[in-house]
């Protein structure tokens, strides 16, 4: 019964947010962008609203958060009442504050990681597709080999070797993810390099960097963006899986993946606490993918 009520409330919130966002975006957007938003499906409007909200929370975290990120304020697991609206965690830190800072840390790290993975993976992938020959073979075989090693175990190895600072965490996950991006970018680029305009650019004598950057990358963006959405979310999951094995983001930094992990045993008792960070991740995932789906739909020119 409660599940049903929660579902209904969720649906209602979804529609309300989506509709409000659509109206707001249309009203607020600069004139040339207005048609873009007018035809936006409700899901995408909802997704955009959520993403904007997260970004806002991430940027304004110090202003919004009622307490400081890792201050111990009182007893552990205090109930949901003022001044701790979402209670406290097991060390007695304010849950709401941790969630808000978590947005900043988790989203920031995931974003940096994904961007890095995409820059490296797509440039190498396109380069391999354009160059062909033994460079392509060597790179692709090497990437194949890396992909044949399970991602979690590869990251575990690398993190154990290089330590678990935020920087190494970003580099390692990005490196592991870049192999997946490489493969996608290469196969997309292989479809593009046979186009006449690439032939024209080659015959013109264009250099490799220009070929990648101006001729191929812009045309490979649609599938890459779609993949970006999913990969972005996989990074959260990778971080939380690593937290599960004790290698995630270091405390006392608030991070959703670790927060889920910390409180995971409480799920056994049906306690809602671990749902908050997990829900935060899930909501963002869904939101990002709604927007990506919409962009894909627009890019594919499918009209229905």
């Amino acid at each position, binding site marked *: 019964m409660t599940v049903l009520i929660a579902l209904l409330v969720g649906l209602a919130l979804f529609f309300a947010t989506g509709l409000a966002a659509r109206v707001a975006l249309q009203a607020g957007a600069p004139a040339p962008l207005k048609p873009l938003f007018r035809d936006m499906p409700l899901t995408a409007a909802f997704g955009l609203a959520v993403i904007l909200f997260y970004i806002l929370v991430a940027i304004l975290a110090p202003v919004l958060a009622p307490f400081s990120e890792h201050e111990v304020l009182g007893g552990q697991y205090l109930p949901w009442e003022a001044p701790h609206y979402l209670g406290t965690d097991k060390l007695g830190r304010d849950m709401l504050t941790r969630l808000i800072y978590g947005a900043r840390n988790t989203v920031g790290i995931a974003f940096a990681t994904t961007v890095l993975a995409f820059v490296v993976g797509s440039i190498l992938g396109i380069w391999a597709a354009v160059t062909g020959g033994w460079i392509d073979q060597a790179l692709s075989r090497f990437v194949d080999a890396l992909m044949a090693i399970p991602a979690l175990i590869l990251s575990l190895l690398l993190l154990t070797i290089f330590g678990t600072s935020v920087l190494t965490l970003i580099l390692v996950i990005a490196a592991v993810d870049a192999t997946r991006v490489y493969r996608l970018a290469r196969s997309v680029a292989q479809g593009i390099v046979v186009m006449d305009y690439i032939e024209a650019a080659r015959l013109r004598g264009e250099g490799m960097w220009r070929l990648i950057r101006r001729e191929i990358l812009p045309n490979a963006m649609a599938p890459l963006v779609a993949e970006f959405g999913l990969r972005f979310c996989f990074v959260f999951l990778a971080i939380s899986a690593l937290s599960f094995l004790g290698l995630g983001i270091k*405390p*006392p930094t608030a991070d959703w993946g670790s927060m889920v992990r910390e409180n995971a045993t409480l799920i056994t008792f049906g306690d809602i606490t671990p749902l908050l960070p997990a829900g935060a991740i899930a909501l963002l995932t869904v939101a990002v993918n709604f927007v990506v789906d919409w962009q894909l739909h627009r890019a594919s020119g499918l009209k229905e």
Partner: protein
Amino acid sequence: MSDYLTRGGLSRRSLIKGATALGAAGLILPAGVRRASAEPKKGGVFRVGIGHGSSTDGYDPGLWDQLYVQTFAAARHNYLIEIGADGNLVPEIAESWDSSDGMTWVFKIREGVAFHSGKGLTPDDVVASLNHHRGEASTSAVKPYFDAVTDIKADGQNVVVTLNAPNADFPYLMSDYHLPVMASADGKIDVTSSDGLGGYIVESFEPGVQATLNRNPNYWKSDRAHFDQIVLLSILDAAARLNALMTGEVDTIDQVDPASIGLLESRGVAKILSISGNAHYVFPMDARAAPFSDNNVRLALKYAFDRQEMVDKILAGHGSVSNDNPIGPANRYFFAEMEPKTYDPDKAKFHLKEAGMETLEVTLSAADAAFSGAVDAAVLMSEKAAAAGITITVDRVPNDGYWDNIWMKKPFCASYWGGRPVEDQMFTTAYSAGGAWNESFWDNARFNELLVAARSELDDAKRREMYHEMQHIVSFEGSTIIPMYNNYVMAVSNAVATPEKISNNWNLDGFRCVERWWFA
């Protein structure tokens, strides 16, 4: 707790002779738990979910290091001496033991006992079992115990061990879990064999997964090993352990996540056993390296955090505050009257000033490999220390490789001790100058002097005095922060009955739950 002190009147003689009361057991049964039925019943399959276990677990006693192999060993093996639930030394394979000078120890080996294979036990088996841990080529973790042993030989039905110096506590060493009595051939034990003298015979063993053992029908103890079969399951994930207990997949689990103790109790499907012992969590500081070389810095840190809060939040109350004292309330010479240290930022500041500092910045390396909740404890310490002008940066390091890269390598890190039944063992191991595991590299002349003196001191009152002084030195001059004694927290299903007293020297009733418990 004062109980421990009033009952501490042990005579040297009684110590040397086996089977004498020693201290008190630290059983704290939670309110509302039914008294176990007095008469144990036989039968049933007892399944234990243990939060340890690895695919590298094996039968070589020298390499045992965690609860899974320890419990597994207790199920199939017997030792020379058992530590009883109340802390007594109980004769097991050694019927009795004696020493005239504390240097030559004679253990009388029980007769008419047979291994699972049917082979009868001889004193030669005992000699071989002990010799496995001696000598150049030994890879045993307890090799240092035998540094002082000059000779082990069988003499009729006796085994005679000769030391190079008197050690009043030597029988305690013989109860160590690394030293089961195993079958030998040509003076060697077979470290790939499960054969033992214990109450259960191994049916199957998958390292890191499970072990199944059946009751030994020929077990020489008639009042032990009540279950028909026991299954030891390795369940590393805390939530999975809880789930297994709550869904009835197992009957007992160890290491209950403190956060869920209250919730589990309220469910009523299981009872919590919270056993206070000598186990303690520590944060050793490298006494050789600045700033920890200055005792004022060390004292500042000791006053800069809230011990009670740590007990409440890290242990969920299942433990007690420690005054930087590795000797626990279950030890004989525990110094309970030592002036306590409370959270006092002013005092911390004062000591800082004494050290010529306004502020202090240190990095504390921690991983939950050190102890469950180590990282959280470090964070708590860091938060509280801020008020005293001390910045503790918590560096959460990987569990993997912790003991290799961090412990005794980083100047300030987390560690734990299971506690030792005798003061000497604890102090020698971790606090004596040059001790193999002197994790703080601490070297105190007075302490070292007292340690040697106390070991061979025969007068109990003087010995007590010496140990009290040593505890005080460690507490106020030592380089180890010891915030708390952690209880052994287990959860057992309502179907399981336990004796009234549960051993506090190790987890799971001193690893002996498989032998001592039964189904109600």
